């Protein structure tokens, strides 16, 4: 009985862990709801909930301070934030699997002013299907993942294209 229960748990875990998260649905041409989260802010006190950004286009960038391509793309994200922030677009950095102090140093060094949340345990990674850093998603105003999932360092063109796709997909 106990062995059967443990085996069932193992099968469920393996099946659940290998579903590829929301990224797999996005790759198959669907627009899944962006997995919601509420995480502590890294740049200030308090928490940030993805749900609280409904009505805005969100560029969700997963990163860590030890990731080299993240250092290359962060100035690009900061520029995009400065360009789009008054047009209903929010860039949200999700710092994951990282030392909080390192991440704070990183954001200070690169002059990041867009909101950044801290997910040291990486609780959001599996639900999104993040496989490495950096990785970027675009969320439409109604909370759905749209456009391209960008794995690795994002270019200015990919950023503009993703934001445009999210704006046009939004109701």
């Amino acid at each position, binding site marked *: 009985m*106990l*062995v059967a229960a443990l085996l069932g748990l193992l099968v469920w875990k393996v099946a659940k862990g290998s579903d590829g998260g929301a990224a797999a649905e996005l790759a198959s041409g669907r627009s899944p709801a962006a997995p919601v989260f509420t995480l502590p802010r890294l740049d200030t006190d308090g928490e940030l909930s993805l749900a609280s950004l409904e009505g805005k286009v969100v560029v969700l960038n997963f990163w*860590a301070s*030890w*990731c*080299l391509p993240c250092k290359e793309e962060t100035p690009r994200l900061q520029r995009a934030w400065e360009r789009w922030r008054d047009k209903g677009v929010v860039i949200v950095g999700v710092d994951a*699997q*990282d*030392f*909080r102090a*390192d991440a704070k140093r990183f954001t200070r060094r690169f002059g990041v002013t867009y909101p950044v949340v801290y997910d*040291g*345990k*990486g*609780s959001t990674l599996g639900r999104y299907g993040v496989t*490495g850093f950096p990785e970027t998603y675009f969320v439409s105003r109604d909370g759905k993942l749209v456009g391209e999932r960008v794995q690795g360092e994002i270019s200015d063109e990919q950023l503009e294209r993703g934001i445009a796709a999210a704006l046009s997909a939004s109701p």
Partner: protein
Amino acid sequence: MKLVAAALAALALAAPALAGGDPPRAADLEAELVCPTCKSTLDQSDAPVARRMKAYIRSRIAAGAGADEIKQELVDQFGPGVLAEPPKRGFDLLIWWLPLGGIALAALAVGALAWHWSRSRGPDVAEAPLDPELERRLDDELARFEP
């Protein structure tokens, strides 16, 4: 008297060191902690985050932190998944006790089955009464050997 005083002074000086124990070894901690991105122990990993964690461990040892303290700090940052072995407390104790409990249950079940099996066997052949006809024939046969 001087000798006793010297011994007591030596003991007093040694006590804090004995209480604190030896400083943890980085290699031991690296074998007990897991890199969060590649899931292998730190001593087996060269991933960027593993390198950063190793540097952190060394800096904390140099600052005089104990093994448990360093592990807890890493758990606070990265979650309990960084421990190669689950902690032996709270709900995680189940991971240690379930297999032992399973073995104990299995031993009890085997014992109970063996006891039940031994009890359900009929009386020993030696104790069973002989068929009167067979007993009479046996007596006749044995009587032939009597002088």
